[in-house]
C-alpha cells in the first residue's frame, strides 16, 4: 500500500477507534458487572464476549501486558493522540516509514475528534462564562488550557493536555481556566520574596500559559495545582486564585 494509503488507513482507524473503543470498553465493563452479579446463580462463570480491542487482545494472549496497556490508552480519544505520537516517533527512529505514515493518520484522526470536542467545549465555556468570577488586570486566561490548537503546535499542546488531565484526574476537579485573583501572600511574595528579590510577573504568567509541568497538590482546603514554567512556578487553587509563586531561574527573579 502506498504512503498516502497508509495515512488514509491510519486516519480512518484513528477516528473509528476514537468513537468506537470507548463504547466497546463500556460494554466490556458492563459484562464484567453482569459476570460478578450473576456469579452466585451460575455453575460456571459468565464468559464475556469482548468488544474492545484491548479486551480482545487480552483474551487472545498475543500481546504483552505493556502492549495491552498501550492499546488501552491508545483507544481513549485524548490519550490516544499521545500514544500515537509515541508510535510516530518509534516508527521514525526504526526507519519504518509506512508505519510512520499510518501513525500520522492515527494522530490526525485523534486530533480531528479533539477538534470536534473543542466545539462542544466552547459551547460549555460560553454557558459557564455567564456566572464567571470577577475580572481585573490580574486575570490571565490560560492559553490552550482545555483543548489543543490545530497545526504543528498541537503535538506540544497534546502533551500539555495530557499533563493537565492527569493532574485533574488525581485532583478530581477541573483545573481553573483562568487566574481569577491573588492571595495577599502571593502578592507579597511576587513583590518582595527572599528579602526583596521578588518574582517577575511575566515569568509567573508564562508558567501559567506554557507550563512544562503540571502537578496536583492536595491541600487541607481543597485541591491546588502547581504549574512549573521555564523561569517560575505558580500554585493556584481550584477557583483560580494564585496561592504562591517563586522564580526557578535568575530570569524569573523580580530584580
Amino acid at each position, binding site marked *: 500500500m502506498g504512503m498516502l494509503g497508509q495515512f488514509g488507513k491510519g486516519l480512518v482507524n484513528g477516528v473509528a477507534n476514537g468513537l468506537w473503543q470507548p463504547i466497546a470498553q463500556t460494554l466490556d465493563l458492563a459484562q464484567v458487572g453482569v459476570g460478578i452479579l450473576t456469579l452466585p446463580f451460575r455453575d460456571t462463570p459468565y464468559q464475556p464476549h469482548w468488544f474492545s480491542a484491548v479486551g480482545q487482545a487480552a483474551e487472545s494472549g498475543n500481546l504483552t501486558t505493556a502492549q495491552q496497556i498501550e492499546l488501552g490508552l491508545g483507544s481513549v480519544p485524548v490519550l490516544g493522540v499521545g500514544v500515537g505520537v509515541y508510535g510516530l516517533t518509534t516508527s521514525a527512529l526504526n526507519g519504518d516509514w509506512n508505519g510512520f505514515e499510518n501513525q500520522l493518520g492515527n494522530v490526525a484522526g485523534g486530533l480531528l475528534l479533539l477538534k470536534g470536542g473543542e466545539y462542544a467545549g466552547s459551547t460549555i465555556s460560553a454557558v459557564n462564562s455567564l456566572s464567571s468570577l470577577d475580572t481585573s488586570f490580574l486575570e490571565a486566561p490560560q492559553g490552550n488550557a482545555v483543548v489543543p490548537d490545530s497545526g504543528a503546535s498541537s503535538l506540544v499542546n497534546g502533551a500539555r493536555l495530557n499533563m493537565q488531565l492527569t493532574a485533574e484526574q488525581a485532583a478530581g476537579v477541573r483545573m481553573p481556566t483562568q487566574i481569577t485573583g491573588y*492571595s*495577599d*501572600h502571593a502578592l507579597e*511574595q511576587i513583590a518582595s*520574596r*527572599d*528579602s526583596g*528579590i521578588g518574582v517577575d510577573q511575566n515569568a509567573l504568567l508564562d508558567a501559567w500559559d506554557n507550563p512544562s509541568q503540571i*502537578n496536583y*497538590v*492536595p*491541600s*487541607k*482546603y481543597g485541591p*491546588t495545582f*502547581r504549574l*512549573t514554567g521555564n523561569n517560575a*512556578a505558580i*500554585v493556584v*487553587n481550584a477557583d483560580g*486564585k494564585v*496561592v*504562591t509563586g*517563586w*522564580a*526557578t*531561574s*535568575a530570569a*524569573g*527573579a523580580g530584580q
Partner: protein
Amino acid sequence: MKNEFTNRQLELIEMLSANGNGACEHLSQKAAAGTLSSNEIEFLCGLISNELMMKGIEETFEPNAYGKELEALLDAVNRPRLHG
C-alpha cells in the same frame, strides 16, 4: 551563591526528604554542605510546596506561621538558582 540554612531549616529538609522517599534522605547533608544540584533544588522546592499546601495554609489560602516558615525555607533552598 551558597545556601545558608538555620538548624531548624535543615531539620525541616531532613523531615521532608524522609517523607519523600528513601533515596533522598541525604539531601539535608547536601543542603548543609551547599552542594545541592539544580534538580535536587527543584525536587526540594516541590516537597516544600506540597507541605505548604497541606499544612501551611489557612482556609483563605493565606499562610499560617508554619507556612511562612516553609516559604522562607523555599527561598533558602532556591537561592542558588536565582544567582546563576
